[in-house]
């Protein structure tokens, strides 16, 4: 899943002139203007906002205790009191779905953050220092591209043991390469540019050049790339849960709920239906948002 194709290689930004700061400001303003015009992306943002609200509400309130057994009948079909029905142990599905939102968002955002930290660091280091460092890093990246990602996540997660943080680590290990490769490419090209040359000539240290000059200029594509990591992470964690390797019980998560639902599919269908729909729409929203963001940062991609 985490492959080059989920986020096509991004062309380098081109700068007409002026100061670095000016360029950046106009880049962000332009991007926002373009994003606002993309209706699909806006709907996606709206939905994702609702999702975040739901996750926060679920921290304080759910219709029922999501882990309490027997609040309703086993496999009770949707009704007024339980709009999404009940599961095998008589737990309220709506409450569990709400709590499951937290898991999906934490895994998505947390993984994106981890990938950001690891990928950007590795990419900057490889691109800036080049030579032997770059060769070693590129070899490692290539090795990671040569192994099937879900299999890595499965082994790693089993090794690390259950837990939300471990899920994020396991998934990050399978998707950091795209980010690293992107940042490396950006850095390689940026370090040759005049303003970097100028900074170097005036005696700036490597750290300052990397984080003061190169990183801010590569930020647009980096953000787009990080946005694409979120749905991949949510999807992968749903896959893990589906295979019985998700967050430890009794914590509800969408993949695990769908998996329970599939087992009961010949008896009742609502158990599998709601988490599947929630998962699909959320992934769709993140992908639309990511597409919109990419188009906004790089209008030439848009057709």
């Amino acid at each position, binding site marked *: 899943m985490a492959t080059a194709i989920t986020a096509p290689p991004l062309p380098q930004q081109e700068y007409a002139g002026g100061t670095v700061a000016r360029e950046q400001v106009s880049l962000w303003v332009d991007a926002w203007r373009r994003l606002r015009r993309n209706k699909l992306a806006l709907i996606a943002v709206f939905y994702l906002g609702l999702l975040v609200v739901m996750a926060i509400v679920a921290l304080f309130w759910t219709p029922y205790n999501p*882990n*309490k*057994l*027997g609040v309703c009948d*086993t*496999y009770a079909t949707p009704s007024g009191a339980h709009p999404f029905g009940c599961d*095998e*142990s*008589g737990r309220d599905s709506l409450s569990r779905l709400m709590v499951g939102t937290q898991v999906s968002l934490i895994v998505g955002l947390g993984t994106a953050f981890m990938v950001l930290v690891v990928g950007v660091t590795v990419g900057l280091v490889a691109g800036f220092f080049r030579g032997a460092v770059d060769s070693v890093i590129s070899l490692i990246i290539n090795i990671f591209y040569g192994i099937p990602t879900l299999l890595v996540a499965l082994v790693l997660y*089993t090794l690390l*043991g*259950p837990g939300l943080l471990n899920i994020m680590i396991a998934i990050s290990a399978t998707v950091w390469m795209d980010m690293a490769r992107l940042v490396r490419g950006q850095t390689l090209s940026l370090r040759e540019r005049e303003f970097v040359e100028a900074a170097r000539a005036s005696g700036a240290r490597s750290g300052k050049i990397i984080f003061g000059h190169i990183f801010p200029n590569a930020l647009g594509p980096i953000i787009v790339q990080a946005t694409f990591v979120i749905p991949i992470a949510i999807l992968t964690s749903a896959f893990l849960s589906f295979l*019985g*390797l998700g967050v*430890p*019980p*009794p914590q509800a998560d969408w993949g695990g709920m769908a998996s329970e639902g599939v*087992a*009961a*599919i*010949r*008896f*009742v269908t609502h158990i599998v239906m709601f988490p599947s729909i929630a998962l699909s729409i959320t992934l769709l929203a993140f992908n639309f948002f990511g597409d919109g963001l990419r188009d906004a940062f790089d209008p030439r991609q848009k057709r």
Partner: protein
Amino acid sequence: MRLSKAKLTGVLMSALGIFAVACGGGGGGGGGGALAAKQILHFPVFQDPKTWDPGKLDAEVDSELVQNVFDNLWRYDNSLNIVPDIASKVPSSSNGGISADGLTYTVSLRHDVKFSNGDALTSKDVLYSWNRAVALRGPYRSNLSAIDGYTDVVTEGKKFCAKGADPTVCATSVQTALAANDPKFAMKGLTAPDDYSVQIKLATACGWCLAAWSLQASTGSIVDHNAVASDPLNWWSKPAGDSAGAAASGQVGTGAYKMTEYVPKQSIKFKRVANWWGSPKPTLTEVDLDIKDASTMPTAIAAWEQGTYDLDGYGGNSTQPVADILRIKGNSRESKELLLKPKGRTTWVSFNIGYPSTGGPFVGESAAAKGLRKAFTLAVDKSALASTVCHNLLCAPATGGLITKGLIGYLGDGSDPLGKFDAPTAKSLLTQYDPDGSKTKNLKYSYNAGGLNDPVATFLQGQWKDNLGISVQLDPHPDASAFIADRLLGKYTMSRDGWQFDYNHPQDWYDNLWGSLAAGSNTSGYADPTGDPTVQPTYDSTLMSADGKPISEALSLYKQLAISQQNDVAYLPLYYSVGQFLIHSYLKGAGSTAQADFYWDGISILKH
């Protein structure tokens, strides 16, 4: 005398079992219809064999199949009574089979027993099989541990088997030594006065030995030394050859069926042995098994409904997906073909009682420790557990002691004070022994994730919260093997525990679970010599004395042990498991005891 009592108890217990659990009918009730032309039984199993070598076999799923291939001297009938198999009768003191001191068993063998390849069975085969099982040091070798000379052979076997990094070396060396009649590999208490009689001398009196020796597809089963010699490690994995004598090979036994084909991950085929010596003469000509992945159990049920499979649940797979069982239960036609059968498996919560190093509020036999154990026990509504988690289909509340309903040693419905639910008493015990709540802070309940264990854990957490006001953290372990290893080391304060009986005798529970005999496999450390010295001497002496007596005299002693456990609050009883079998009504003679599937040789397919 002793046996008739046992028999009576067995019948009584199974009768009770049928009454108590709403039994949906199912197999066995086919009546006298005409037989179908094709007598091929087809059903799914959900795992490959780990091993079918009776000397090393350790899994119910394996024994359920090859109990039809191997015989013991005696076997359990469908009411769990011990009946003659290779031996011509069941020894007792009244028929002279057991000496007055209870130390010598004289067994005469049937003269007509033949292995599936034609090899005749003699007393030498019995000696070979039993000595081999001990020397291989398999998990069930202790079934033979009362025989004089047992320890010597175990020690001797260890010399071979613990050496090289290769199991082949172990199996081959043992085979070579046995073939050469090496006296070091012969238990001195096991002798053959002539070709058809065996004399067994015990080191100590043993009331449970006959029950253990009769355990199907285990260390008491008789194997063909010629076949084993052909491949000492993996002889059991190959189809039974037809050649007798030195040319014998494959999985050769004396049972009514022989394995004729095994394709890993796909299928296993068994065929009826031609001119089989035993009775009743089997009707099924062939038994075809599909090996399916456990995740496809719902699909297998669908296939059963469509008629692809004749039954589902055999082969140790009677824990079915809940949704499908509920669905079938609600279908008037199909519910008649659903057989619910208590499976001799009890689940409880173990407290850390005898491992002071692990600590926790439950350690020891002080009034406070016992009081807190009792508080946690009484705070759990076992009936609500059975209805909420098990939908009253998958399990029944454990209210009659640890030994499950239907087995010798069951104490009677509602007889266990620990099986009761009494929230006020629980709360007052807690206030009495932990007034400021400091002792019961940060408690964890550890369990292996999966199946019923997850909802049960959540249920317990809720009960302790609601009835005691204590928040217990759940500690699920994704890997059962790692969980079991740590549990046996006493690493958990509260943990899921359980036992599935092997043979119908209280000794199988009491020896394996508590006391000094269980040291090393004692989850709670109750009555363990190192950690729980106050209870241990009395417990052990009562246990030793019970184990040495015939069951008629031993029962009251075992009951004494049960009561002392109850007084000491040694466990928190949860539920007895119930197996679900789907058996089409055209199958006659299919069903299950609390221990195992009914033998294939009694099944026939009616016209349908």
